[in-house]
């Protein structure tokens, strides 16, 4: 289904323009990090790409063949994981059921992915009594089990402590290694350096820069990006 192409995409709500004429193309392979200050429109941009929101102008285009019978080719992990009131395992098999995975295969696949994120021991515990870090790992497992071609992550570590953050970053790396395209938002510069292959830098609803990570941090092309990297972006 990749590349994902946005052409002049805008999104407005309540008379306010949140995304303003954004165009880019995301290819399979490199981990893309959408970077920018709070309120830059990162999360909204991600929801537009994932299809949770529809652009008010412009086009979003997925290339390549799209076989509707296959499991959905994209998944998303949110900043605050939404845990269904059932076991950790049940949360994963729920997603597989919606993806039309045969019943016989669901539990096997769910157990394997829970093991892969380090939750193998708590699969039968209710998801809602897990810690915040475990819940986010479970959300990653639920998305990974779908074997998506693209995984969107919206500030997945914003509410986590450093230990859980490291774990989540490791899992995101593993998911990438398994062949899934990663698209992730963050406002954390260190995380962007650790995880990104390329950076989409958003500022005030516009795409300010689209650059490989080394070049972005070494030689930011815009004043906004330079200020953000130095931690001096003005509040506006």
């Amino acid at each position, binding site marked *: 289904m990749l590349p994902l192409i946005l052409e002049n995409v805008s999104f407005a709500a309540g008379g306010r323009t949140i995304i303003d004429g954004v165009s880019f193309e995301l290819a399979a392979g490199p981990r893309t990090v959408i970077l920018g200050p709070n309120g830059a429109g990162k999360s909204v941009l991600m929801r537009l790409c994932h299809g949770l929101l529809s652009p008010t102008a412009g086009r979003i285009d997925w290339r390549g063949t799209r076989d509707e019978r296959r499991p959905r080719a994209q998944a998303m992990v949110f900043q605050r994981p*939404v845990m269904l009131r059932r076991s950790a395992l049940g949360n994963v098999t729920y997603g597989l059921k919606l993806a039309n995975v045969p019943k016989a295969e669901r539990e096997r696949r769910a157990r394997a992915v829970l093991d892969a994120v380090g939750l193998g021991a708590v699969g039968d515990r209710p*998801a809602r009594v897990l810690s915040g870090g475990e819940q986010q790992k479970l959300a990653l497992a639920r998305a990974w089990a779908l074997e998506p071609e693209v995984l969107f992550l919206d500030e997945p570590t914003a509410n986590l402590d450093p230990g859980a953050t490291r774990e989540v970053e490791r899992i995101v790396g593993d998911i990438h290694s398994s062949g899934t395209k990663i698209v992730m938002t963050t406002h954390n510069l260190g995380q962007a350096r650790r995880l990104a292959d390329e950076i989409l830098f958003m500022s005030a609803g516009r795409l300010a820069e689209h650059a490989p990570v080394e070049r972005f941090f070494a030689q930011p092309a815009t004043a906004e990006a330079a200020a953000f990297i130095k931690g001096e972006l003005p509040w506006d």
Partner: protein
Amino acid sequence: MGDIGSAFAEAAGLILAADRTLYGIVQLSLAVSMTAVAVATAIGLPLGALLAIRRFPGRQVLLVTLNALMGLPPVVVGLLVYLMLSRAGPLGDLGLLFTPEAMIIAQTILVIPIVAGLSRQVLEDAWREYEEQLRSLGATASTAAATLLWDTRYSLVTVVLAGFGRAAAEVGAVMIVGGNIDGVTRVMTTAISLETSKGDLPLALGLGMILLAAVFVINAAAQIIKSAAVRRYG
């Protein structure tokens, strides 16, 4: 005071003696109200879920109507059902007037707005939390509704209990459509009303005590199950 004291004593005697009339009345009451609540739940919960999830023209009007109907006076419902079921009414041929079925119909109508209105609130709050995740996973509206109903099941127990409380406590509707016929349509509330006006306080009090106890026990059981489940499943 002496009158009240002896009335209580006599009432306790009737309960302990397992008085047949008394227990017949209790049995019919519970059967009518529980059936009405079951039917109202089967209709009200999907209706509540629909209102919580779907946005459609006229939804606001429907919500206001539903909330207003939560306070529907039972006598008015009784009167309307009476008009429908009476011999000259559109459903007169069914011959349901003055039967337990008529009472079930009336109480069902009373309870549906309670179950639908309160569950809509519970489900809408849950939907606000779940919507993006469920849409991301590709849930259709009906799958989402089923998921929300299952995930809010403990809160919905309280909603159904509120409906049961309404049905078990009302007297106006069952009096009008049931007729308070001894041995056929006499339930606790209509019997209490009749015996009090006749001056037979012990029977009225005995029934009142059983009614209170029944409502108390059902609520307590539900509360215990709910809090145990919440502790266990979060």
